[in-house]
């Protein structure tokens, strides 16, 4: 009987900056329908690990596989499966909130674009701000828009760097419910978080990194 590989598999991930080893031999796996949370104090390499896995940074050593194949973020197939929200997200200054989501939905050629975009806008609580330009949104609303860009497109694996940042308490509750719904839909989730409540309610596995 053949064994199905995990959705995401990381082996021996190593990242060095000059003489400083930020990540040493990191192994992790994320299965479909499960969530892995990476926790740890500031400087322990959580976000660096996420960037290396998502292809935004080049690891010094190690392998990252999606569905048993090397994860190359340049591949259109990988870009279709991977929804990533890191802290480097900003927006077109001249497109409104709804136009951002409409553009991404069209770029991914999804069906029923208007229905999906409206549903996501309602879900993230930005329906009332649909016509506003990103520069006029509050930091919490911009975070919701960043998360919406992940939810409006096809995806099999969500990679989120501190998704709870700048969200109010209602937003945190919504986020936990939304991520659990994503799991129920069979998506894998890899997130970095400092919020113990979010980790407890969403994560099936927790990987705690130590400071270096």
């Amino acid at each position, binding site marked *: 009987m053949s064994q199905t590989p995990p959705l995401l598999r990381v082996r021996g991930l190593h990242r060095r900056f000059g003489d400083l080893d930020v990540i040493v031999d990191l192994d992790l796996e994320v299965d479909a329908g499960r969530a892995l949370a990476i926790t740890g104090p500031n400087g322990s390499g959580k976000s660096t690990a996420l960037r290396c896995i998502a292809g935004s940074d080049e690891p010094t050593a190690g392998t990252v596989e999606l569905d048993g194949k090397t994860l190359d973020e340049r591949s259109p197939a990988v870009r279709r499966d991977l929804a*990533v929200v890191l802290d480097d997200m*900003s927006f077109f200054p*001249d497109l*409104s909130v709804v136009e951002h989501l409409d553009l991404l939905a069209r770029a991914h050629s999804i069906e029923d674009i208007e229905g999906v975009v409206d549903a996501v806008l309602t879900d993230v609580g930005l329906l009332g701000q649909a016509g506003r330009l990103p520069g006029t949104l509050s930091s919490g609303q911009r975070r919701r828009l960043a998360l919406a860009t992940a939810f409006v497109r096809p995806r099999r694996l969500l990679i989120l760097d501190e998704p709870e940042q700048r969200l109010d308490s209602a937003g945190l509750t919504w986020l936990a419910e939304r991520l659990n719904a994503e799991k129920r839909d069979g998506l894998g989730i890899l997130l970095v978080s400092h919020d113990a409540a979010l980790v407890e309610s969403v994560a099936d596995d927790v990987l705690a990194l130590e400071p270096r």
Partner: protein
Amino acid sequence: MTRASRREVRELRQQAREWRRGRADTTLMEVLSDAYIALFATCMLSAMAVSAVHQTRLSISASCTTTECTDARFSSAWVCVTAMIAVTLVAGRAVGPVQVSPAEGSWLLATPVDRAAVLRPRLGLVAAVTALCAAVAGSVASTLAGFGAPAIGLVAAAATASGIAAAMFAALVQPHDGWATRLLTWTLGVATWIALVLIAADAVPAAPTSAPWAITTGAAVTGAIWIGAAVLLVASARNLSRLHHNRLVPGGALLASLSGALAGLDLTVMYDILIAQKWLTRATVTPVRSGPKGPWALVWRDVIRLRRSVPSLVILAAAAVVPYLVVAVDLGALAVLAGALTLFVTGVPLCSALRTTNRNLGLMRCFPMPPETVRAACLVVPAALTGVWSLATLPAMHSATSATWGASLMIAAAMAVTALAAMARWILAPPPSYAQGLVASPAGGIPPGLAFSLLRGFDVLILATAPILISPTSTGAVISLLLATGVLGIVVRRN
């Protein structure tokens, strides 16, 4: 202003002086040495600039021999002064013109001191800077137009007064939403454009063979402009206390951001700041939810952007007069270079999607297609516009090169692709890396190649138009096209 508020402002300045006392980090000798170097550098650069202007005047006098060219040259001085006033209004409205830094806005404007007294030196600074720039513009324009020394002096004086008047007008209407400044700017802009069209069509009044006016008449007109400027200066100074915090701080924050970007010699960051500022003031748009799927969705969004950026589109269209103008002043040999340069400068504002996706990895990652496909999609609309622009200038190319219509069409196409490649190079250039080894300089460690970052885009213009400048034939156009296409391909495909 009351006596009490005068004392309060004086006391505040005295406090600032006392705080600074004993905290100086340079010695008197170092200050004198820096002042000497600054003075020496200013004198040397000014002498070089004056020499360059004088040589250019002689060169133009030698080459501009036809009646049409002489007439156009004479009119160009007035066009320059009109354009200078329009630019002063635009710049004044963008930064205030009276402005304070965010820090000063937080602690100084929050105190109960007389705001007009705090802002009066700022207004004086605005007037002084504008006067300097306007005087330089007026004297250079009239020198190159071939005026005699007295006329140059009068035009420079009139331009200085006009510049001050424009800045003071912008300051006078600063408490309001600025529609009057916008109206005046567009009026002057349209007047400048009409004058350029008339010059290009050789429909300007004939240049006088003797002095264009009596010195006394010129002096009277200049004096009247100075009186107007003085009245506006006094009126705007009396208006300073009406300036709200939110009309003062954004301009200061914008200037601080722009000067920071300029200190790093990164003009593209200045472009980002100006684009962000432009859309921040707009706040909302009417959403458009339609269009094709896949990469064409990006192209369609650029079409929607055009509808929201009508002024940029109008400026691009109006700039098509430049190649005709170059031909009209007997500089046809430079028509391709001037056309490509104009297209590059006026086309860059239409590439905001390319810039945003390129500097924003998080956004680029959201799209399912490779980065080069995203970049190519963001270049489709600018490419179409440059193509239309080059077709609009085809008669000028034909007239400038005396080539066949077929060869002229190829030359125009080469000009369009060159401008597009220059835009892409300017917008997609990686920022200077401070993480690598730095080169020692009198100003401290700088990344290698930092100074050359100012030349990005312009280098492509020179490189790709050189074959046409050397040989304005279909062969030169083909070589030029190949060079520009190669640069475009490399820039778009680079990771």
